[in-house]
């Protein structure tokens, strides 16, 4: 377990020195700041517009940052074989995967915090009153990143190129936001006598359910989220990500370099 910490440190160092990290961060901050312009189109609703665009930007750029780190670092290290110099030392393969994964989460957390501070600053200027739900929305964006990073690593280990890894992860991100439609599709098919319920159910449970974690969409709703709901949402995210990461460990343990 001791070896995980140096791998986290080195993932952070590598990421922070990568230009893409700053590019993504800069783009995100530009979008967040530009939300002020869009807010002018909705007089009286400025803070809501800034909040909606800002949180949306944080989510998208956190996703891009996580995917670039997961694919770039894990797949990149396997492709250029620098991983062999790590595995030739007393490091267990699960330590490598969990170290890399934790490092990516760390960097995503930093990213999200920087973007959130930028957004909070804008909202503060506009006279927005702080709402605890903001923290909840940010936490749930991070939970989505927790899941997608684990999946990005898994896909990077299975696929053979950066393009297929990125597109595969992107595809899962999209699908994860529309899983609820599978339920409806199942309902329609059953009505028409087509019986593929088990198949659809399997897909429904296998795919990540990002809609379940979309707390930011409910920022304006008056009723607070129930504690038990939050508990199950957090538990779902952590369990899903853990299973995906252990699957990555399984795949990685069989890999030859």
């Amino acid at each position, binding site marked *: 377990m001791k070896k995980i910490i140096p791998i986290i440190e080195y993932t952070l*160092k590598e990421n922070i020195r990568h230009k893409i990290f700053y590019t993504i961060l800069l783009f995100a901050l530009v979008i967040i700041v530009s939300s002020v312009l869009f807010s002018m189109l909705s007089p009286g609703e400025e803070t809501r517009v800034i909040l909606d665009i800002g949180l949306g930007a944080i989510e998208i750029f956190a996703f891009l940052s996580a995917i670039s780190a997961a694919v770039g670092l894990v797949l990149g*290290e396997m492709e250029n*074989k*620098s991983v062999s*110099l790590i595995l*030739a030392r*007393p490091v267990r393969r699960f330590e490598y995967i969990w170290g890399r994964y934790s490092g990516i989460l760390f960097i995503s957390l930093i990213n999200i915090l920087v973007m959130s501070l930028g957004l909070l600053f804008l909202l503060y200027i506009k006279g927005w009153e702080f709402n605890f739900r903001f923290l909840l929305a940010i936490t749930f964006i991070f939970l989505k990143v927790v899941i997608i990073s684990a999946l990005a690593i898994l896909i990077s280990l299975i696929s053979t190129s950066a393009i297929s890894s990125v597109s595969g992860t992107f595809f899962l991100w999209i699908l994860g936001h529309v899983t609820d439609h599978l339920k409806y599709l199942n309902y329609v098919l059953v009505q028409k006598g087509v019986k593929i319920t088990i198949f659809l159910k399997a897909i429904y449970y296998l795919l990540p359910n990002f809609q379940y974690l979309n707390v930011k969409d409910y920022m304006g709703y008056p009723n607070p989220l129930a504690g038990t709901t939050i508990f199950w949402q957090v538990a779902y995210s952590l369990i899903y990500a853990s299973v995906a990461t252990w699957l990555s460990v399984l795949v990685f343990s069989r890999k030859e370099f």
Partner: protein
Amino acid sequence: MVAIKTENLTKIYVRKHLFSSKKTNALENLNLEIEDGKVFGLLGLNGSGKTTLLKLLVGLLFPTRGSAHIFGQRVPHLSLLSRIGYLPEFPCFLMYLTAGEILNFYGKLYGFSRKEREKRVEETLDLVELKENRNDRLADFSKGMLERIGMAQVLLHDPDLLLLDEPTSGLDPLGVKKLRQTILRLKAEGKTILLSSHLVTEVERVCDQVGILHQGRLKKIVDVKGLEGRMEDIFSETVSGEG
């Protein structure tokens, strides 16, 4: 004492295509014993199985059949990796790190304390004459300098066994000479070294024994002592004789 022992060690690569698979016998029933404290050279043409053998010993590849033991322990074994220094043919590093940082990182993976790491990093950088470049990023290093960093990471933890895959590739003649001196110094310290190379004369100069690999098979083991420059002929005869 035996440092490395392989028994019927076999590695078959299977490349799977859509509806077919292609098998390549990279190493076939290799039985080899290398004594502790010796320098053993592996000679062979491209694709003869030299790199495969080294990777099997370090646990980067898994054998299809047979087994390998290092210092009496079956490979792969995590604790063994603290006693092995491995230099791949084309060592690739994280180019965003500096020379000092990469060695410090590897030092952490061995569990060295901060003080110990500092000392070892300093010593090994000095040994490969890169002390002045400690804070330079590896991305700015020349090919020869990267090879020297490769050697530094091998020596960092003072291993008992060194597995060097084509250590002279990328080195200029002066670099080759310095590497030879390093190998001879390590040999005098009692280290066991297994090195693969294309350079017959270089192998003859530093090795006690040489194994000739051809098409994944160990064809001959030659004691270098008393050969007096005939290694090249022996190698050519062995390899060309097999076609």
